[in-house]
């Protein structure tokens, strides 16, 4: 009951120190922000190059308009980007199944060793950016769509396997025990006991990841894998700014299609 017996002055004192703490925290935060604004934005920027607002407007006006001539040449890269995302997600799913199996606490075969190994793989996969994966794979397998697919797959493994292993951990134990009691092997437990339970979550996750992968595959071309990113890179280097706008419109269109499709698919499944 001592909490309710606070005297009024205690209460105000407590309140005062709380407020003081808050004030100090906010002052420091604002100071830090202003310092970074000063160092990052004011000191680091070449204000002379930007010139006046007019200069920026002029620069922006280059981007206005569409280049209709390059449109026929963008259909194949757009399709390539789309396929890259699909294949990358599929390969990512295939690779993430064993990782998820190792990374689920209740089914991992070697206890803590395999569990922490799988968790490490997941973390590495998620924390390396897709551009870096693409760079590594362009070095490993050469230019083209293949490094893009591999990069997307490696990037997706972390997320997909994390969700799958979490849903394996959260699966209902009763059917698993029933299968085990009836003499089912480890494979039987996995196939008849766990997979039917986690299937909806897994499919939802894959659709979500596929949606993100379309976005990612559109930039794979910037570092040498194919697709719309390569077209963007070319237009940018030719300083054909209306062409750049056209490529961006294609990317936005592709992503909108992906979003609508994934929305529709998710609604149908769930």
């Amino acid at each position, binding site marked *: 009951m001592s909490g309710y017996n606070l005297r009024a002055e205690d209460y105000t004192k407590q309140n005062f120190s709380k407020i003081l703490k808050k004030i100090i925290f906010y002052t420091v935060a604002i100071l830090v*922000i202003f310092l*970074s*604004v000063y*160092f*990052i*934005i004011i000191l*680091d*920027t*070449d204000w002379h*190059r*930007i010139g006046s607002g007019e200069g*920026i407007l002029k*620069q*922006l006006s280059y*981007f206005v308009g569409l280049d209709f001539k390059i449109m026929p040449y963008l259909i194949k890269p757009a*399709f*390539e980007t789309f*396929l*890259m995302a*699909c*294949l990358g997600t*599929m390969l990512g799913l295939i690779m993430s199944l064993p990782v998820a199996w190792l990374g689920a606490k209740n089914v991992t075969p070697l206890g803590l060793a395999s569990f922490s190994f799988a968790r490490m793989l997941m*973390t*590495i996969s*998620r*924390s*390396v*950016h897709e*551009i*870096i994966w693409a*760079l*590594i*794979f362009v*070095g*490993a*397998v*050469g230019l*083209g*769509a*293949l490094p893009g*697919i*591999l990069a997307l797959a490696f990037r997706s493994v972390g997320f997909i396997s994390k969700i799958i292993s979490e849903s394996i951990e959260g699966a209902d134990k009763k059917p698993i025990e029933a299968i085990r009691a009836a003499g089912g092997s480890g494979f039987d437990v996995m196939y008849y006991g766990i997979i039917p339970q986690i299937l909806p979550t897994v499919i939802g996750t894959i659709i979500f990841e596929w949606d993100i992968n379309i*976005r*990612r595959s*559109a*930039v794979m071309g*910037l570092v040498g894998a*194919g697709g719309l990113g390569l077209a*963007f890179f070319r237009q*940018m280097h030719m300083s054909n700014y209306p062409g*750049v706008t056209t490529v*961006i419109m294609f*990317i*936005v269109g592709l*992503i*909108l299609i992906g*979003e609508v499709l994934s929305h529709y698919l998710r609604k149908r499944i769930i």
Partner: protein
Amino acid sequence: MEQIYKRNNAKNFILLSLFFFIIYLCFLYLGIDFQRFFSALGNFGKLIANRYYPVDIPYALEPGYLSSILDSIQMGYLGLIIGVIIASILAYLAAANLTPSKRIGYPVGKFLIIFARSIHETIWTILFVTIVGFGMLAGTMALTMYCIGFFGKLFSEELENVDMKLVDTIRSNGANEFQVFAYGVWPQVKTAFTGILIYTWDVCFRASTIIGFFGAGGMGWYLKRNVLQLEYARTSAIILSIIVLVIFSEALSAYMRDKIYKETQ
């Protein structure tokens, strides 16, 4: 029973072979050599072992590189702050139940969020670098756009889930638009806002490590330089440092989210 089983088996077999045939067609269309595909993993291992392996860790501890890490972090939270301020307004416009004007505000807010979201952060960086030049201003602007897309989507979904009874009560008592937000909506979404904010910071920091590759400052610029100079040992050191930082930021954001969750319970 057995017949059904057999028929299902045949159906599955046909579907499976169709599936593999489609994948084969995709590979043909993309011009991928099967031999190259199956040797990819081996090549990847070889590349890591031969080129990237002796990691040049002292390079990642040089003061120049360390200060670039600081630059990246600063770029991350500046982009986050500006982005979240803009995104909150846009999310309010784009929430179907709260938007002040359904005819203009809703589609504009929704469109801007989707537009900011559908363009990858690296493409935003390239665009802003062409407009304002190399440097961290371009990076901050790119991260701002990224945060608008990311935060705006999550927050507008959160706003659409608020309990409208409370909001309507306050509105029917004659509150203006600001009062409705401050007393009806904000207390309901406060926790979610903080959670999404921390999550966005995490993602934004992850993006800020890489955007330097396309001309914004920070760690990415070091990465670009070493990739172009084929300094594999240094590149792997940088990638390793990015992994360490990202793990650290993930742990921090998980800790903070946990703390906030506990405080509200």
